[in-house]
Each structure stands twice: as C-alpha cells, then as structure tokens.
C-alpha cells in the first residue's frame, strides 16, 4: 500500500499534466457526496415539502456548522496519518471558559470571546502536538489520554455549575442564531474556514507537506520535510479550531455544562471519513470532510422531516459510513490499477 500511496503522491505532485485521472477521481469523490446530499434532500422534499422552507434550510446549514469546523482541523491531522480524539473535550472546555468570561464581564466583546475560545483550543492543541510530534508517541493514545484529562479539568473547573443563559450578552447569542442575507452566521464562519484552509491545502508548500507525510512518513523525512514541525502545527491547528468551535457552541446554545461536546470526536472522524479522507493519511480534502459532515446532518434532519422515527438516525449514519469506506477502497484499488498500467506503458514506451 505504501508504495502505491507514494506513487500517487509523486504522480499528483510532479506530473500535473498526466494526473488528470487522479484529479478527476478526487473531484468525483466530492461530487458523489453532493449528489448524495441532493438525493436525500430531494426525496425528503417529495415526502414533506416544508423541508425546503427557508427556516428548514437554514437549520440544515447551521446544524452541522460546528462539526464542519472541527472536521476541517481533524482533516489536517488525519492527512498526516494521525488522529485527534481530544477535540470533543477541547470544545467543552473552551465553551465553558468563554462562558465564565461573560459571567464575570457581561460586556465582553464578541470578537475577543471568539479569540479566547481559539486560544484555549490552541493551548490544548499545542500540548497534543508537542507530545505527538516531539516525544514520538502514537497520536491515538495521546489524544485519547488528553480526551480524558481535558474533560476532567473541565469537570473540576465547572464543578457542577452551569453557565446561565441570561449572563450571555444578546450580541453573542445573535452571533450564534442570526442570519446574514438568509444564511446563518455560523455556517458562514465554517464556510470561510473551509475556503481558506482548502485553498491553503492546494496551494501552499507547507500544507502539501502534510500529504507527503501521510503518504510515507519515512520518505517525507528523507525529502527534507520538517515532519515534526508540520505534525505539531496540524495538531495545534486542530485544537485551535475545536476551541473556536467551543465559543460558537456557547453562542448557539447559550448554556454549557461539563458534558458539552462529549462524543463529538467520533462524530467528527465519521464525517471526515465519509468525506473521503483516508484514515491512514495522505489523501482527502477539507471540502470533502465538510461535505461529509453536511451529508450526515442532512440525513439526520431528513429522517425527522420524513417522520421516520428518530431511532433510525444512528443506524443509517453507521451504514452510510461503512458504504463510504468501502466505496473509497474500491476507488483506491481502481486508481492503483490504472496507475500501474500507466506506469507499465511509460516504462515500455
């Protein structure tokens, strides 16, 4: 597998002209999710026409916004062949700390509150990054440990308290619930994040390094890529976005207990994987991950609108995930075969 991944990376980096097939397949992957979202949306609309009402669509967009934000960060980490399981706890901690700021100072500016959330997350991400990148221990174990530690710290700080919705200023709550030209602000925030990071992942060398690291860590070292620094940055970034997600969570729900964000980590990983990011790194896009989150959420809400018992949500989401993984495997095998044929032709010709 690693050899083919390497070939993939080489062929898509070094020979942009002949990699049209690979790019087409990648485009195909995201298109498949868009089609799936369209199908779910269309089928539900036929059953219940109010599903396409403005309020419902706004709900469809704002619902998955925070997950999309977390998925963007998680994508970067997974592309480097690591995983960040601590994001749910980071989100909870950051949401509560931002809440405390508001309780002590009701006139705390909104922008600063978002920065506080971002900062809390960044701090957690930096700890993850230092341990994973510089102590060279498996990220799954480290972030699993951090999941527990951060949740525990959160519980101690919270100590049974709950942020009172009345202490959250209206301007901040508006931020979480209002729309700009009909589009929820939360969704705009996550779209901006996807656009910026998505652009960076295509363009900047340092971001392309992440793909190289995930495709073949040893080769990345030999190629002179500062592997440790890149992995560290990916974790710091993922933490920062989870922290920002925490601030947005507070804006959306206006109240936080110590359990906020529990279990989010696996939801986010599921969304990322549905979005076509390979769990062993080296391929996938931020846009795909965001679409994956959107798809899972759309299915959730479609079931409600179609008056299917909400008990079905999870089973369908799980089945979707399995289909997505199997589909990716199929595409990967095909790509591998095509590349091998192409390579053989080139060698002979």
């Amino acid at each position: 597998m690693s050899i083919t991944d390497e070939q993939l990376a080489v062929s898509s980096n070094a020979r942009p002209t002949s990699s049209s097939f690979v790019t087409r397949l990648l485009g195909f992957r995201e298109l498949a999710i868009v089609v799936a979202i369209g199908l779910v949306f269309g089928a539900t609309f036929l059953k219940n026409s109010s599903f396409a009402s403005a309020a419902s669509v706004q709900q469809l967009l704002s619902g998955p916004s925070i997950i999309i934000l977390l998925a963007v960060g998680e994508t970067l980490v997974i592309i480097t062949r690591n995983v960040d399981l601590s994001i749910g706890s980071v989100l909870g901690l950051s949401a509560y700390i931002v809440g405390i700021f508001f309780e002590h100072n009701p006139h705390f500016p909104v922008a600063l509150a978002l920065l506080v959330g971002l900062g809390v997350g960044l701090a957690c991400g930096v700890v993850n990054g230092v341990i994973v990148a510089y102590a060279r221990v498996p990220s799954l174990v480290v972030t699993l440990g951090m999941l527990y530690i951060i949740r525990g710290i959160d519980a101690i700080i919270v100590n049974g308290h709950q942020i009172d919705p009345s202490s959250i200023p209206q301007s901040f709550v508006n931020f979480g619930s209002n729309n700009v030209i009909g589009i929820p602000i939360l969704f705009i925030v996550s779209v901006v994040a996807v656009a910026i990071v998505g652009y960076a992942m295509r363009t900047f060398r340092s971001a392309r390094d992440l793909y190289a690291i995930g495709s073949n860590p040893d080769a990345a070292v030999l190629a002179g890529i500062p592997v440790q620094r890149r992995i560290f940055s990916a974790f710091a970034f993922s933490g920062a976005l989870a922290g920002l997600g925490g601030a947005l969570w507070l804006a959306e729900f206006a109240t936080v207990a110590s359990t906020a964000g529990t279990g989010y980590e696996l939801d986010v990983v599921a969304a990322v994987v549905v979005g076509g990011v390979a769990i062993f790194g080296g391929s996938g896009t931020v846009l795909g991950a965001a679409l994956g989150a959107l798809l899972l959420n759309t299915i959730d809400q479609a079931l409600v609108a179609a008056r299917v018992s909400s008990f079905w949500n999870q089973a369908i989401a799980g089945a979707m995930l399995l289909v997505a993984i199997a589909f990716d495997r199929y595409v990967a095998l095909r790509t591998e075969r095509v590349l091998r044929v192409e390579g053989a032709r080139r060698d002979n010709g």
Partner: protein
Amino acid sequence: MTTVDEHETLSLPESGSRTIDDRLRGLVRWESGLVVLFVISLFYGASTSQYFMSLQTFFFAGLNFGEIAIMALPMTLIIITGEIDLSVASMLGLSASVLGYLFMHGWNLWLAMLICLIVGIVGGALNGVLITRLGLPSIAVTIGTLTLYRGIALIVLGSNTPTGFPEWATKISLPIGGSHIAYDFAIFVVMAIVFGVVLHMTPFGRSLFAIGLQQETAFFSGIRVKRIKFLLYVLSGLICSFAGILYTFQQASSASNTGLGLELNVVAIALFGGVSIFGGRGTIFGVFLAVCILASLQASLTDANVSAQAQNIVTGCLLLISVLVPNARDGFSRARAQLRRRKVRGAT
C-alpha cells in the same frame, strides 16, 4: 513462527551471558511498573479512607469494572494483531437491547440469551468480513459499526426500558454466595486465565504476536492472517454480547444506551496494560493489573469525594504515562547505544 523466534533472539543480550545490567533490564518491564503502581494505589486508598481496605470495596470495585474488564480481553488480542475494535460498547448495548426486547415480548430468557450471543457473533463477523475480506481499515470500520450497532439497538428497543427480570438472573449483582466476590469479577478472572493461557502458551496465541509484528512475514510463515483476525472479531462480538447480558442482569433493566461511550475506556485499559497500539506487544497479566489499578483508584477517589468526571484525569494521565515511559526508556537506550558506538569509534 519464525518472526517470533527472531524477535526473541533479537531481544536477548548479544553476548549470551546475562550480566547484572541485563538482569535489571529484565525486571524493568511494564508489568513490574504496574505492580508497583498497584501497591501505591492500594496504600493511597488505605490512606484516604478507613473503609477502603474492606471486602465491600473489593466487591463494588469488581462489580463496577466487570464488563469493561471482560471486554478488554478480546480487545487485547485484537490490538496485539495491530487492529482495533471500537464497536465493543455498542455491541454490549445491542445485546442488552435485544435481550430486553425479547424478554419484554415474553420469550424464554435462556432462548433470548442465546439469540443475544448469536447477534454478537453476527456483529463480530460483519466487522471481520469488512476488515479481512474487503481489506478496510479496522478503525474506520469499527467507528462505522459503533454507530450502526448503537443505531440498531435504538431501533430494537427505542426508549423502552424493560425491567422485571427473574430473580435467579438479577442475583448476579449480589456477591457470590457467602463471599465478597462479584460474579462479574469472578467471570473476568476465569476468562483472563483462559485468555492468558491461549495468548502466551499456544501456537495460536504466539501467532497473534507474529501478525502484529510483521503481517507479511507471518503470512509467508504459514499463519492464516485473515482467518485469525476474522475469528478474533467474532470472538470480540461474542464476548461483548455476553458482557451485555451480564450488564443487563446486574442492572436488572435494559436500555438502548447501555454502555454508551465505554469503548474508549476499554481501549484505555488495554493500552495502559502495556499493549502496544502498533501491535506485537502486550500481556494479559498487564491488562489484568491495569484493571486492578484503575478499579482501586476509582474506589479510593470516590471515597475521597472526587467526582467521576474529575477521575478522568487519572485515567488520562495513566494513558499518557503508559506511552511516554517506555518511549523515554527506548530513547535512553538509543542514546546510550550511540554513546557506546562513539566511544568504540574513538578507541580505534
């Protein structure tokens, strides 16, 4: 099997004669560290509360940790082969839900239990097929089946919480007649012994290490890698559904959210017990000690009025220690080897 032998000869000292240094290194195993930690945790418990060193504590600790500990056993084998199973807690929940549903509809309880075990085998087989036959990554597959099995549990049982299980079944929440041993704990100990013997003393068990160390080499040495992994997932499904039955009887009620989120606790116990996440290393004894330490810490921290959520910090720190300490040791020996090489080079 050659891989295992190779690995063992590699870890033996080069000269053949055991120096004091080598003997010391033999003692510095992860398990010895765990024994020390266990003793410390017992002393800590005794110092926090005069009631800690009682048979009651022992009973409740066994009761609380039974299911997690039981599920950690097949998890250990799976992680040793370099894979993972995150669907264990959902399997437990599914089994509990099926049991509750069938009981609610007046089925014979023994028959219902049998169906649960079959559900476990089928669920494990699905994991196994997806991972070994389709070649999909186990972490992604089992996150998928984690959601799927929990979802099916919800469909089966909905928001019902059937109760009223017969007394002969629910009495497993009481100590075994006249003693202070919880049924869960006794079952865990018996199973741990069986797992330990199979893992460490049979060719099958050794082959798991071979698979975890070098899958291709194991395959070319005649080990049926795919079949063995498949069997492990089936075993995991079976044992988790069994744990679900135990849990239901112990709680005397069943709900679709039974065991929600326990999968990470199970993984944490296996890893803390010294099982390498990359596969190829780990012992049942280590996992057994990890269970004892966490159970004893939980009991003493609860006595000291530390909230269950705050106790997470301890679990998390222990996990970090379990990867950082062996790593630091490796780094230390690497540095020493380098130093020795430099010295040799300087002498010539």
